[in-house]
């Protein structure tokens, strides 16, 4: 356990950990929708593996958040009993799956960011955060590689695949900027070096994404207006449905063991 944190820091830290957990959970939830419906058996299995990794990371993060909140809450309380405005996930991950290409792009943009973030986060002075980041990074490296390779295959595949994935990139791009716009919690934690400054990760992210898109013979959108709000609980309309579905048993039969 870390030395007692200042109260504001404690609140910021728990909010931040929830943000990381929520984002992984919602993405895992989307990936679950693919299970049994993938384009080929081997890739169905690959996607589920990623989903399982994300769920594992989610659970570690919620468990840590529960510790920080000190309100006798469980990981499931945090996942199942918070509502739309309390969820802090990125808008990017709540977007519907679309076709396989859209799912791949969403994954690729996110994992590229995660790789950069976790690489910094594993050096955090907060030992628990650092430990979670270190373990997650191993999984993220693979997710990144897998999704980048698919971006290249689909981009440089057939004419149809190229036009489909380019369209997906253009559509989803507006949700990519939010990752680099720090919310209040991120600002506070970055100012005391518990987490990196996310804005500073943008350049490296753009470079990495550009390299892959170039190899995929795809075009990177420019100067697009960026949506934001996820980190402060202002979401797209999709999140409400995700939560309604995910939480319904816990809501309908409160305080039961499952």
């Amino acid at each position, binding site marked *: 356990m870390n030395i007692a944190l200042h109260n504001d820091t404690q609140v910021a830290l728990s909010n931040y950990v929830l943000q990381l957990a929520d984002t992984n959970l919602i993405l895992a939830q989307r990936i*679950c929708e693919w299970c049994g419906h993938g384009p080929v058996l081997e890739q169905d299995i690959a996607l*589920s593996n990623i989903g*399982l990794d994300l*769920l594992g990371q989610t659970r570690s993060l919620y468990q840590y958040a529960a510790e920080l909140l000190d309100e006798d809450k469980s990981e499931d309380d945090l*996942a199942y009993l918070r509502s739309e405005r309390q969820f802090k996930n990125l808008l990017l991950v709540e977007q519907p799956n679309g*076709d396989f290409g859209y799912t791949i792009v969403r994954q690729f943009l996110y994992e590229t960011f995660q790789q950069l973030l976790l690489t910094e986060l594993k050096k955090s002075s907060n030992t628990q955060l650092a430990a979670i980041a270190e373990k997650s990074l191993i999984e993220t490296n693979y997710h990144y590689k897998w999704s980048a390779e698919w971006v290249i295959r*689909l981009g440089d595949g057939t004419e149809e*695949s190229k036009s489909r994935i380019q369209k997906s990139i253009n559509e989803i791009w507006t949700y990519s900027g939010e990752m680099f716009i720090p919310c209040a919690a991120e600002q506070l934690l970055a100012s005391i070096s518990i987490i990196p400054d996310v804005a500073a990760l943008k350049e490296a992210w753009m470079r990495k994404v550009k390299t892959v898109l170039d190899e995929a013979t795809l075009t990177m959108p420019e100067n697009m207006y960026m949506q934001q709000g996820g980190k402060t609980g202002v979401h797209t309309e999709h999140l409400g449905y995700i939560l309604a579905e995910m939480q*319904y048993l816990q809501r309908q039969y409160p305080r*039961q063991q499952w």
Partner: protein
Amino acid sequence: MSPQINLEEQFQAKIDAEIKIEPKDWMPDAYRKTLIRQISQHAHSEIVGMLPEGNWLTRAPSLKRKATLLAKVQDEAGHGLYLYSAVETLGISRLQTIEDLLSGKAKYSSIFNYPTLTWADMGAIGWLVDGAAIMNQVPLCRTSYGPYARAMVRVCKEESFHQRQGYEIMMTLMNGSAEQKEMAQDAMNRWWWPAIMMFGPTDSESSNTEQSVKWKIKRHTNDELRQKFIDATVPQAEYIGLTIPDKDLKWNEAKGAYDFGAINWDEFWNVVKGNGPCNKQRLEARQNAHNNGAWVREAASAYAEKRAKRSVTAEVA
């Protein structure tokens, strides 16, 4: 003696001596056909079987349950893959096998044509359906065709957690609120008979059994396995307070096994023929996955081809 008869005799002698048959060995046409039918049906069952459980992935009531269910459904995809690979050793491509499923020509286990209506169905499927499947599959680890036997060894090893996770779900519900208990009993009531039917028609009605047993493709008859399953499952149900929905079920001391009520074979054959509650929906889901994935599969092939060409060009240059 014609050479054909000689080959058949040698083949049967190998089977009798418990020597496994491998892909390139000579085998009677009917043996090959029976294997292709049985293994591909088995593979399709794994793949279609992902759908009823996949239906609850997004609604699993805890993160632990979500993760274990996803791992289980993913395992089923893996098992389908092992089995499709075994079919391929008999000279039938994956695509051909899948097309037979999508056209409705090939069958899969009828159990997956029943709907999953509540969370308790995840418990009932894991415990009863996987339990019945394991009963079938364990003897198949010693089946006479090598690739099938090896696939089954892998499947059985991985599947051991499936039944336990199902039973644990049921047990948790039976330890819970009145509503949860009701949910569990309701699932039991709906899944028991379809699970019993999973072993297929009675031996007297089963056209394939005798020859399959002689070839050691099957190692036990349908009725033997069904009896074994019932005898193993009844005490498990009693232990957690679930009632088996069969008023004729009773222990027969002389037989050393349970007597049980009449199976509704009319329902069984109707579901096999396509009249089950979800036949259409399951097949459509598989067709959609296949059709919607076509452009992805084509793109990856095209990219692989381009890259291979480029590397040749690079070498020449």
